């Protein structure tokens, strides 16, 4: 029956008629594709006349949109001959958007760039060096030395800077003052008190816990914070090898991972920051390690009186604090921009004292401008003030995490996060975890050095 049907079906179109059409279509597609190549992210661009349109990609679009709109309105009022085209890009996909634009063209003039993403973009030649522009303008000497050092280290090109730092975050030990008071505990400003409080505030049967840790996405970054802060090891590299698996760090890691299920909910195994913060906000949990960004969430959940935040304690009484560098947010000038002069005006304006202070007040983050330290809002926001003071304290040891390694993001996330879960579950020892992490880092650094030598 099928055959019979087929035999009566319409005859196919003659092949000769199809061939030229197919050839033309194929040629058109190939020509189009070939002509589309070029004008990639490393195109040279130009200074322009300092007027016109500046396209700006916000790397934390949505959340920061209101404050950026205020800054842009103020800028356009001051520079009526420049229009800023604001493009809010969701933080979750900003790197993909940049990568696509670097490969395919269409980069903006200015973009928000964190130090965690800087190395990748510098390696692709997408960003313009801005060190000279900073030195020659009003930003000279006004930016936090710690943040400048982080930006320089992350760029991986010596002392050159590829973004203007605007803001930094820092891990904060948040704790519930009401629970501490009720249990007769002091603030956890040393490690002994921290572990004692974690244990005392835990009553698993009554669903009360002393601490909640991050076992899912972002777990390794948090573990590194805990390791270096406890151990006091002040550098990430020593003699060309990472210090991640130094005995002091392994011991600290063992103590930290040992909190799992003893002083934390079992569900922490899969916690990313969202779940962790939500869990802290809706339960009876004494302490949480997260950055300043979650301060508004805690205030919303508990009110200002029942929550406090302090920097991670120093390794020993009287010792300086040790803080692994948190990603520094900044503004990058793209090499492909045809209007760099106007774009730089916008960057300089956004990094001015008034605008930088405004942005960081809204974000609850640490301003890059040193002259913002005395602003009223900083005085009122105790956790920000404490974090800022610890960051800018010359005694503080800042461990520069290797953001410059192109493999860093992979190694510290997908590459080792499953192993951290094994560590929590007791399927791996702290030494094994640290050794594996160290092996990957040492290998990545060797590869990076090799590539740079070429």
């Amino acid at each position, binding site marked *: 029956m099928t055959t019979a049907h087929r035999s009566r079906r319409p005859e*196919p179109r003659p092949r000769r008629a199809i061939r030229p059409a197919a050839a033309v279509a194929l040629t058109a597609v190939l020509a189009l594709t070939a002509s589309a190549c070029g004008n990639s992210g490393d195109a040279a661009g130009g200074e322009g006349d300092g007027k016109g349109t500046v396209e700006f990609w916000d790397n934390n679009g949505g959340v920061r949109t209101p404050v950026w709109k205020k800054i842009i309105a103020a800028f356009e009022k001051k520079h009526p001959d420049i229009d800023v085209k604001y493009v809010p890009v969701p933080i979750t996909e900003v790197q993909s958007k940049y990568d696509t634009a670097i490969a*395919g063209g269409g980069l903006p003039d200015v973009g928000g760039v964190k130090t965690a993403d800087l190395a990748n973009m510098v390696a692709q030649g997408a960003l313009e060096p801005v060190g000279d522009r900073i030195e020659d303008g009003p930003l000279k000497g006004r930016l936090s030395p710690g943040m400048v050092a982080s930006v320089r280290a992350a760029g991986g090109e010596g002392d050159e800077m590829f973004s203007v730092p605007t803001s930094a975050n820092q891990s904060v030990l948040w704790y519930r003052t009401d629970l501490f008071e009720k249990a007769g505990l002091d603030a956890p400003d040393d490690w002994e008190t921290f572990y004692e409080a974690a244990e005392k505030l835990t009553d698993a049967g009554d669903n009360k816990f002393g601490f909640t840790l991050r076992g899912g996405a972002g777990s390794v970054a948090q573990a590194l914070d805990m390791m270096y802060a406890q151990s006091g090891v002040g550098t990430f590299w020593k003699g060309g090898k990472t210090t991640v698996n130094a005995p002091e760090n392994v011991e600290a890691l063992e103590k930290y991972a040992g909190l799992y299920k003893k002083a934390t909910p079992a569900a922490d195994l899969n916690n990313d920051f969202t779940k962790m913060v939500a869990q802290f906000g809706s339960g009876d949990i004494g302490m949480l390690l997260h950055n300043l960004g979650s301060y508004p969430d805690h205030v919303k959940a508990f009110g200002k009186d029942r929550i406090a935040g302090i920097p991670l304690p120093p390794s020993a009484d009287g010792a300086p604090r040790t803080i692994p560098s948190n990603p520094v947010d900044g503004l990058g000038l793209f090499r492909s921009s045809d209007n760099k002069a106007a774009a730089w005006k916008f960057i300089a304006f956004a990094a001015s004292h008034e605008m930088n202070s405004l942005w960081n007040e809204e974000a609850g983050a640490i301003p890059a401008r040193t002259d913002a330290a005395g602003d009223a809002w900083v005085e009122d926001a105790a956790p920000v003030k404490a974090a800022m003071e610890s960051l800018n304290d010359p005694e503080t040891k800042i461990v520069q995490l290797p953001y410059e390694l192109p493999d860093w993001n992979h190694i510290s996330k997908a590459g080792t996060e499953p192993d951290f879960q094994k560590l929590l579950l007791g399927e791996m020892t702290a030494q094994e975890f640290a050794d594996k992490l160290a092996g990957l880092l040492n290998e990545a650094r060797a590869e990076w050095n090799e590539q740079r030598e070429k």
Partner: protein
Amino acid sequence: MTTTAITDQGAAAGTRAGAHTGSAPPARRFRRGPGTGGGPAGDRTPRWQIYLPLGLYLLFTLVPFYWMLLFAVRPAGSTSLVPWPATAAHFDKVWNDLGFAVFFRNSLLVGVASLLMTTAVALAGGYALARFRFRGRNGFMLALLCSQFIPGALMLVPLFEIFRELALVNSLWSVVIAETVFQLPLSLILISGFIRNVPAELEEAAWVDGCGRFRAFCAVVLPLLRPGLIAVGSFAFVHSWNHFLFALMFLSSQEKYTIPVGLNYTIGAESVDLGALAAGGVVAAVPVVIVFAFIQKWLIAGFSAGAVKG
């Protein structure tokens, strides 16, 4: 009910046949037994064996929806497990502050345009695949199947370059075209299957009556393809409605973004506005739920038609 009616007719036919020939036995009569799922006699499946798995399935399906509704209408900071007292503040925020009014309109434009383009091209291509025999047809079908294994992310850069050359970057057309292209393989396969199930004799009869090929197709084949068109159209619409990647990559203007991009605006680097995220989720889900509520019977008819006739 349907089963009973069909089998009764069968039994009646069998009886009539038996009376006529005097030899054929009556067709077996199925009946609904008490406490059964309506299967053949003797298949006495206890009700709990049907309702328990269904209940569990519903639990897993509906709890996230309840969670979304709860967070969408619950005031910020509330830990109540019931959506009372309710607030519209989150909806106000996403609709007016985050720009969902604009994103919704853009998503609707992209969804409807993708639906129309996908259906139109799939109809034409599906007809050719079903009705014509030409060299490379099987290879083409294989290529269509293989194209389903290519992730969209892999095609981002080449597509971006092509759209840039065509000056379509930051135009909703870029998203519509990309969505259409990625929907076409599956749509072509589905539609060609539906068309193949329409007997060619029907078209031939129309030709004999004086219709041209196009008119015969419109008058005879098209009305019979309704379930297939609804299946393909709804897939195209829902896929475009939900797709995040192309809208984010090919558009560079807040006024052009679609709802999935807008939803991501509620997720910050250090905090998530769960109320706004949930309210945005409700706004995003409503059109899809409405679409499926209207088309479900056609969709199921389409699937079963394809399943039986291959």
